[in-house]
């Protein structure tokens, strides 16, 4: 057991536990905070995989922007705790059985068929240099320039769409 494996196991346990916490918490605010914890652990995974830019983008975009938007909406709606609705009796067991099957399929594929035993070594110090970031920027702005520009149009459309959707029409009460 070396340090990397111990770190990996702890991170994996925290990630899975926070995902389970998201599923079982009745209060939506707690669920959002569990998800923030999950995003933070995944960001540390990215650091382990030698992708510091993606790790920081994860923290700022997901844990920062997206989850704050979620928290705003949760508090705006005042729907922290939903009243217990009547549930279909077979829904929850069926869902659990189906997801167990899905997980078993994934495990079978990963560990029986693919046998991806290639080891991923710890990143060396070169991933933290400017040259590594320049490589990423070169790929993004040369090879993937068109998708990058299309992304800006997508964000613009989403922004305009949200404004149009939530605008109150003239004479509408409330």
């Amino acid at each position, binding site marked *: 057991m070396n340090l990397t494996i111990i770190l990996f196991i702890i991170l994996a346990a925290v990630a899975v536990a926070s995902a389970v916490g*998201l599923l079982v918490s009745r209060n939506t605010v707690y669920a959002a905070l569990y*998800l923030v914890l999950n995003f933070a652990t995944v960001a540390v995974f990215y650091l382990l995989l030698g992708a510091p830019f993606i790790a920081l983008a994860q923290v700022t975009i997901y844990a920062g922007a*997206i989850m704050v938007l979620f928290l705003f909406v949760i508090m705006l709606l005042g729907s922290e705790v939903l009243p217990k609705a009547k549930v279909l009796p077979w829904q929850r067991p069926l869902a659990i059985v189906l997801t167990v099957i899905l997980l078993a399929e994934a495990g079978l594929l990963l560990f029986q068929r693919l046998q*991806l035993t290639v080891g991923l070594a710890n990143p060396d110090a070169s991933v933290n240099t400017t040259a590594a970031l320049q490589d990423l920027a070169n*790929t993004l702005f040369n090879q993937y320039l068109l998708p990058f520009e299309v992304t800006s149009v997508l964000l613009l459309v*989403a922004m305009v769409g949200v404004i149009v959707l939530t605008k109150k029409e003239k004479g509408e009460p409330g």
Partner: protein
Amino acid sequence: MDQTIPLSWYLAVSAVLFTLGALGVLIRRNPLIIFMSIELMLNSANLAFVAFARSFGVLTGQIFVFFVMTVSAAEVAVGLALIIIIFRNKHSIDVDLMNSLKG
């Protein structure tokens, strides 16, 4: 003593997170939590992307993660706006009440 972690371990974590996200979509009826579960699934896919990028030694996987993040930001903005409109019309956001297309 080797300092390497097999690629399949990362993919296993990714698969477990994806499965938990799918379970959340199936069993919860608060649309906000369903949304968060979808984010969890996108995130697990991102983890698999970065692990494969590291394994093959290419940067393309990281670029894809960047695009997935942007698309999910747009998706969350539109989805939350829809939830707000539904709440304004029905005064509840329980998914069981959203059974008619007419507002």
